């Protein structure tokens, strides 16, 4: 919310500026990359306690920070800190960064560089290269001839190119560090130049500022910037977005214009023009949600050279450049944070105001973005095979794998192979007809291969025409196992690509639609020696009854498209409920997603255009991000579980559409309602109680169960549905003895129960309380941990097509960290989190809506 600064009594602390941050640093690097400092601050670098660089002029923090050169190359184990000085004030030292040997982090060698952005163009004179380790050397070759190099690179480095690219040249980037050369980047072919280029789009500069952002820049173009009609200078850019500094500072009403061209002699593009706005127009910065325990704030929009000031409960606790500003305090739930920006001497008149939430997961790294290896691919056909139903199909499919170079049948990556066998992901498509369904997950296969996982997609297309239901699912499982057996033959037989390289003790499955059912069958019937299945993903699965429907002994995830126009019942919810969470289970219920758009070969909208949908690209991003997070954790042991249990959000994903359920093994269950001991006792066999007008009962969360609450439930578990006649309706679930929850979180699955009459209007919610041994109760509102989503209205499809209503009550998991439970103000008895005796659920909304609950647990934080 934006508020007028003058209405606030913000208390400045003029002596406080925040420390900058230091990017990861690597042995042999000759620079330290510093970020998040004030424009034109000076930087000091400390190495193992000694200042080795003092007063380095930092310039602008955007776009990519300041690379500070060092006299000597770094060595592993050194400790780096940085501080900034601005206006005579010095910040504290930054958090310490430990210099690493890149081979400790990347045993198979440097990640492969990425030419980013792409494509590159004829006459282009500058190229961006990403996915670099800071301090490496990066160079570019066109047709195998070096045309540019940058030493001591940033993580995303521009490389000037001379001579400019010709037409159709093969452009590749390389990197090296410590004498270790990376694999080549994916090759880009320089595209024809065109003229005139579109006008660049300069952003709005503000009085007193000196830096302007230019969007719409063509990759490799030369830009010319004019100020009040007078040409200032020309520069080349890798494109898309460029930030450029000018001096003296801008004056309100000045005009800046920018043109661009690719080839000398080409006409300039039309000019992109902007006018400097006065101080009064400096906007409030955009700020990401803040959660309890944060020690910094992250901005998502701000003037690039602005000073950002952060006030917590009215007092300044941070000041630096964007996008991340460190704080002098740790914020708590309910704290009020104000963020403003200062451009030159212009102090923003409007301020961004946020209330710190108990839970507001930050954006983390991209789990699908681990790009280490070139990707080889191959198709296989191992001849005919007879499945259980008696039909025959070729054992066929495609395999993507980490390779020494991109391309079909490229050799397996030797450095990775030298480290040991490589895990396997097996993908199974659903029934759509045609002959290409198995090709529809190539984007996921490539991502998995680039991070060191062999990704096989099994061709089950012929089986689409066989008919059958559970029989067909069994047939698909047979085909999956036959393909794995074929790969075992290649692996054991010394085949040129895969011989000796596949780790069959690390296998995970992903199936879509009928394939999502088949991946449940495989672990129950497979008898191949040496195969261990560690995980399975069911994407929009059917439930044909072909298996137990209780995933057991492996990690399980299901993705349920809420606007599925084919598998309307979202049957994967039954599998989630049946899974034993060993070691974990996860469910993604995705609003505005349909059945088909996760597969690139399935072009039709199964919801027949009757429901609003997120784009196909957004469908793919969800599968890529969460799928890779799953496979990386299960097969590579990477720390990506935070994306699956909701502690982190993947970037570039419409996470507001994704509702997570998550359960892990060996946690303390207060009540899962599965004990058959009635609502009167919890899973600890302790007597529960209802008060304040609450009516709660246990129901089977199944559409067709006799004891269902209503037909909006589509799972296979027993839970509780509660409704309150007033604002004090409370359900109390006690423990047998007092428990210390200071290092724990309370988790509960909850959902607003769908009832047609309630579909309009705002969301409902509840309070979760902890009661200590002295009777003191601390409450946290569900709004503070993400809020109950509304049921996804899909009646526009179900009504016309089926004359029914499959809007669902779909619980998701809410986390209540113990740090959020505070004594209410003006209470005599202080809440003691070390002696908690009961959890309370209070339905305090006046709307009287029913809420479903399940799986109330205490979970180690």
């Amino acid at each position, binding site marked *: 919310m934006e508020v007028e600064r003058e209405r606030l009594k913000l208390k400045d602390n003029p002596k406080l500026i925040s420390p900058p941050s230091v990017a990861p640093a690597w042995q042999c690097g000759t620079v330290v990359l510093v970020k998040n400092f004030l424009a034109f601050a000076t930087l000091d670098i400390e190495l193992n306690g000694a200042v080795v660089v003092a007063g380095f002029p930092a310039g602008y923090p955007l776009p990519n920070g300041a690379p500070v050169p060092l006299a000597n190359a770094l060595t592993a184990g050194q400790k780096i800190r940085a501080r900034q000085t601005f206006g005579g004030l010095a910040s504290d030292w930054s958090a310490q960064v430990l210099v690493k040997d890149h081979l400790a982090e990347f045993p198979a060698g440097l990640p492969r560089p990425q030419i980013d952005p792409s494509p590159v163009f004829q006459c282009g004179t500058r190229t961006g290269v990403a996915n670099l380790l800071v301090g490496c050397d990066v160079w570019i070759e066109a047709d195998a001839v070096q045309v540019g190099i940058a030493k001591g690179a940033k993580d995303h480095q521009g490389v000037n190119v001379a001579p400019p690219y010709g037409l159709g040249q093969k452009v590749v980037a390389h990197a090296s560090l410590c004498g270790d050369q990376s694999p080549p980047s994916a090759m880009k072919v320089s595209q024809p130049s065109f003229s005139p280029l579109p006008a660049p789009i300069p952003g709005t500069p503000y009085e007193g500022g000196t830096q302007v952002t230019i969007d719409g820049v063509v990759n490799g173009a030369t830009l010319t910037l004019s100020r009040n009609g007078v040409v200032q200078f020309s520069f080349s850019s890798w494109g898309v977005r460029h930030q450029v500094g000018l001096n003296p500072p801008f004056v309100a009403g000045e005009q800046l214009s920018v043109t661009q061209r690719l080839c000398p002699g080409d006409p300039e593009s039309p000019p992109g023009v902007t006018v400097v706005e006065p101080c009064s127009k400096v906007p409030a910065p955009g700020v990401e949600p803040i959660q309890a325990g944060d020690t910094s704030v992250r901005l998502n929009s701000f003037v690039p050279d602005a000073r950002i000031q952060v006030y917590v409960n009215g007092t300044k606790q941070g000041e630096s450049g964007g996008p991340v500003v460190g704080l002098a305090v740790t914020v708590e739930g309910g704290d009020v944070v104000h963020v403003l920006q200062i451009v030159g001497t212009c102090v923003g008149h409007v301020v961004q105001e946020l209330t710190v939430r108990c839970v507001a997961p930050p954006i983390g790294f991209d789990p699908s973005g681990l790009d280490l290896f070139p990707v080889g691919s191959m198709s296989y056909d191992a001849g005919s095979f007879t499945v259980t139903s008696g039909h025959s199909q070729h054992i066929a499919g495609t395999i993507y794998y980490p390779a020494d170079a991109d391309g079909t049948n490229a050799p397996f990556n030797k450095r990775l192979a030298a480290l040991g066998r490589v895990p396997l992901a097996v993908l199974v498509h659903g029934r759509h007809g045609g002959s290409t369904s198995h090709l529809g997950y190539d984007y996921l296969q490539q991502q998995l291969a680039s991070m060191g996982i062999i990704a096989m997609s099994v061709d089950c297309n012929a089986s689409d025409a066989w008919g059958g239901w559970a029989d067909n699912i069994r047939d698909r499982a047979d085909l999956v196992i036959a393909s794995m057996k074929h790969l075992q033959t290649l692996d054991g037989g010394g085949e040129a690509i895969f011989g000796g390289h596949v780790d069959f003790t690390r296998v995970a499955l992903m199936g879509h639609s*009928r394939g999502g059912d088949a991946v449940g069958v495989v672990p129950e019937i497979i008898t191949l020696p040496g195969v261990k299945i560690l995980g399975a993903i069911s994407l929009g699965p059917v439930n044909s009854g072909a298996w137990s429907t209780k995933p057991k002994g492996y990690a399980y995830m299901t993705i349920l498209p809420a606007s599925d126009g084919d598998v309307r019942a979202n049957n994967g919810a039954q599998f989630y409920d049946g899974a034993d969470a060993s070691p974990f289970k996860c469910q993604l219920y995705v609003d505005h997603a349909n059945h088909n758009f996760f597969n690139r070969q399935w072009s039709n909208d199964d919801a027949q255009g009757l429901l609003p949908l997120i784009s196909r690209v957004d469908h793919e991003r969800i599968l890529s991000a969460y799928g890779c997070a799953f496979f990386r954790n299960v097969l590579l042991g990477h720390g990506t579980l935070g994306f699956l249990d909701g502690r982190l959000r993947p970037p570039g994903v419409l996470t507001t559409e994704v509702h997570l359920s998550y359960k892990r093994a060996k946690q303390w269950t207060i009540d899962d309602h599965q004990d058959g001991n009635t609502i009167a006792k919890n899973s600890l066999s302790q007597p529960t109680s209802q008060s304040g007008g609450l009516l709660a009962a246990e129901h089977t969360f199944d559409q067709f169960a006799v004891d269902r609450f209503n037909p909006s439930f589509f799972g296979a578990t027993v839970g509780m549905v509660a409704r309150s006649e007033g604002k004090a309706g409370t359900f109390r679930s006690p423990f047998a003895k007092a428990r210390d929850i200071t290092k724990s979180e309370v988790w509960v699955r909850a959902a607003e129960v769908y009832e047609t009459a309630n579909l309009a209007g705002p969301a409902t919610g509840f309070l979760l309380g902890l009661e200590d041994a002295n009777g003191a109760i601390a409450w946290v509102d569900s709004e503070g941990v993400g809020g109950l989503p509304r049921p996804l209205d899909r009646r526009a499809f179900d009504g016309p097509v089926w004359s029914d209503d499959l809007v669902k009550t779909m619980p998701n998991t809410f986390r209540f960290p113990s740090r959020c439970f505070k004594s209410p103000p003006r209470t005599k008895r202080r809440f003691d989190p070390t002696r908690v005796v009961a959890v309370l659920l209070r339905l305090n909304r006046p709307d009287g809506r029913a809420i479903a609950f399940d799986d109330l647990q205490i979970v180690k934080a």
Partner: protein
Amino acid sequence: MSSDSESKLPNEQLRDIWTLPAISAVSIRRVRHERARQHTIAGRLVDFDEGVEIIIETDGQIPIRALAPALHIGAAELTESAQVDERTHRFFVLDESMLVSGEQILLGWVGHRVQATQPGEYRYEAPAGAPQVARSLRKPRNPRK
């Protein structure tokens, strides 16, 4: 000067996956299998030495999609089938005791309510007990309204 007019490609985007063709013929037979036929029931493979098959012909193709076509006969839902050709499907009766002679045979989707107003009217009649004796039902001349 020549000019072209629009040439629309099939609109795959709005492909209808729910509309089923009408049944145009039904035959019911009891079959003895030379080699036991295996079906997956509740997660287990079950051998059938013989069984009743209901073969339907339709006036169009059944859409290929995730869900399976099913024959609804009274309270019974037959979900296991084999496609003979694009318009002929062989449904396998896995539990004869669920079927009641005289019940209407309706084509629908597994797990979904079936429209009882399908054109034509075919009724189930249990085939004689002897194996490999097929008994056909042809479209009745005067279907009951």
